[in-house]
């Protein structure tokens, strides 16, 4: 069950990550690289130095002449190549999503692609920081922590852990995982840290009164006929922020079922708020956040499976699981 749920979440995430790449302005990484290519082609550093000399009154003829060497219509070939690569990666994400949905067996190539997806999530969110231009852009890698670890978790399951043989059904394979305390703990901690970091960054943004969250709340409330005043919304945001921070600590310090249910429900509500506020045209913004709540559901199913195995084998592989 938990592997199925994890696969489903990864698939949805991959499809929604592919949408802006294939149908809009590309990934953050593509935009960052394109900008770097643009800047390199324009050779702005020389021109900037020349302009600075003009401003400080120390310009020579060479400084003025440097502007004439700027190629105003440079070849767009590097940008086209980057665009093609970005599109190729977008298509690969669709394939990874389909693979995650369909493949229920130990599958190293897919595991590698999932690992790359995870790495790409990290690179892309870091590119968002470098691109800037968005409030709290510097928090992007933290906000994307849950969606970054999710493909990695599935990759570890599909990567053929020592007991899995090629072609073995995952359901059989992970039965044999039980008892591998290190692996189970690593899976558990990765998921919890991913959730915690995401919630911590969201909590920080909420307490700081992020205008985007404010719009999401007010516009979503209007869908159900509620007209929330700004002050009420900001107070609400404060409480939401504190709640997120509380959940951050709770998920890190405990393995409590109701905390995970709370995270799952709240994570999915906040993801869906993009649609409720802005309509279905931005469905990808909601779906790409499915891991924020979905990962908690995976953990619940994972713990349930561990509990079942524990009762069968009379041992508990993860400390604290008894308290679930």
């Amino acid at each position, binding site marked *: 069950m938990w592997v199925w749920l994890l696969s489903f979440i990864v698939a949805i995430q991959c499809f929604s990550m592919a949408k802006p790449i294939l149908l809009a302005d590309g990934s953050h990484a593509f935009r960052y690289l394109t900008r770097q290519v*643009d800047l390199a082609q324009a050779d702005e550093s020389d021109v900037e130095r020349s302009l600075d000399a003009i401003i400080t009154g120390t310009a020579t003829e060479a400084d003025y002449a440097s502007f004439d060497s700027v190629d105003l219509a440079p070849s767009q070939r590097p940008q086209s190549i980057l665009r093609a690569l970005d599109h190729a990666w977008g298509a690969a994400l669709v394939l990874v999503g389909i693979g995650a949905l369909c493949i229920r067996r130990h599958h190293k190539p897919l595991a590698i692609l999932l690992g790359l997806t995870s790495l790409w999530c990290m690179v892309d969110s870091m590119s968002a920081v470098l691109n800037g*231009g968005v409030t709290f852009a510097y928090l992007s890698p933290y906000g994307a922590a849950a969606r970054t670890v999710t493909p990695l978790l599935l990759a570890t399951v599909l990567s053929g852990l020592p007991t899995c043989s090629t072609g073995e059904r995952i359901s059989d394979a992970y039965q044999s995982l039980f008892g591998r305390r290190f692996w189970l703990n690593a899976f558990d901690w990765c998921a919890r840290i991913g959730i915690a970091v995401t919630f911590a960054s969201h909590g920080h943004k909420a307490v700081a009164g992020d205008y985007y969250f404010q719009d999401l709340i007010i516009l979503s409330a209007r869908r159900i006929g509620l007209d929330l005043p700004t002050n009420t919304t900001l107070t609400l945001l404060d409480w939401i922020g504190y709640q997120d921070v509380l959940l951050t600590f709770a998920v890190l310090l405990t393995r409590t079922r109701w905390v995970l249910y709370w995270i799952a429900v709240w994570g999915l509500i906040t993801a869906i708020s993009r649609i409720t506020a802005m*309509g279905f045209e931005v469905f990808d913004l909601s779906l790409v956040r499915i891991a924020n709540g979905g990962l908690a559901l995976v953990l619940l199913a994972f713990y349930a499976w561990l509990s079942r195995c524990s009762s069968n084998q009379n041992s508990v592989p993860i400390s604290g699981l008894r308290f679930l």
Partner: protein
Amino acid sequence: MYICNKLSLALLLTISLLCCNGAFAAYPNVAEADVAEINKKITPLVESIPAQWRLTMKDDPTAMATVSWSTFLPDGEHVLYYGRRSSAGDLNDYENRVVCQRNGKYSDEVIKKKNKQDQAHSKEEQQQQEEVEPEGNQPPKPTAYYHHARLSGLKPATLYYLTMVSNGVASGEFHFYTAPADRNRLVFLHGGDSRTGIAARSQMNRLISELVSVRPEICALVHGGDYVSSGHSYEQWERWLSQNELITTDENRLVPIIPAKGNHDRGKLIGEIFDFESDGEDDPIYYYDIQFGNHLSMVILDTNIAGTGAQEAFLTDALARLRPKTRWLTAQYHRPLYPAVKTAPAHKGVFVPLFENYDLDLALESDGHVIKRTVPIRNEQKDTTGVVYVGEGGLGVGQRQPKIDRWFINPEEGAYAGQGHHVMLIAADVKMLTIETIGMDGRVLDESVIQARDEYIQN
């Protein structure tokens, strides 16, 4: 005679065809201009010489304006002399003298961050750096000083001459026109996104300057924001400010700017540059409305803050107040609500219903780095009574490929989408509003007309 007639007809037809194809530029062509020559017009920012001058219109453009400039040194008194007569070199000939109401040192948050990092370095690290780069650590570039002279009580559609004086050092004489209050025609330029492409920025500024020279009725440049890549960086703003001098015409006419805030224009500097001031510790408010008599009104919005709350209240109030008495109602903001490349921001859910409810005629957008003109939109579909959205920024920044499969920019439906550095020339007459998209080479890339709404045409 018959052959002559045929030949002249053929010649006429050929010329018409060439003109239609844009072989002859309708406006000045700066694509091949010598950028080095253009940049020679930039005034060095040294000592107390007034430089980086600009004219901003934010309140009542028929009666108020802010003349701003920078000096490298803060010393002395900073005064603006102005009047309806040229002084011919004698400052005492001016009718008015105003001491700058706001002066200060430009902030540089990047330098502050750098200084903090520098302080955090251990002595050993600093020593190591000095050993490796004995001359590499340049001290942070000092920031210059801004001066704002706020003028009020001006007469509409009037020519004013002015000279800026800092610490006894006078600039050359400039002039500007206040906006007309009761005209039946208003012409202005719209553009955005000048944050990269320094050479192209000089050329686009030159294009603006030449456009104002050949079309003197142009009353302002409506700038959609993203002036620089990092609004926190004084270094970047300093370059923009000096290059912005280039929009001044060869006859020394200042072109007023009606500014909006872009997503890259964060930080204190934009407020210091365009004289946005906050009452307390909060950030200044960057949304406002501007009225050109009853002929045209423009609501300038800020897509960097919540669309709901105070901004929504302002927008609702402004549209309700302006619509009944205004012939043409327009809006300007940075992030596009019907984007040709990106995805729409949450502001769409707030702004669009209000725009449609109050029959906005035209929305000016930036941010996407493409050329775009949508079909008129109402209720998420093409509707001749809807709002036309144009943009999306090309005053220097590299251009992107528009997504022409989006229904609202589908050329088959009468919309336009393309790419290239551009500025839009918007002429609002009594019955129609014409939008011309002009490329760097002076060619008109797109031209369209919006008919005035019957219920407001009498305003």
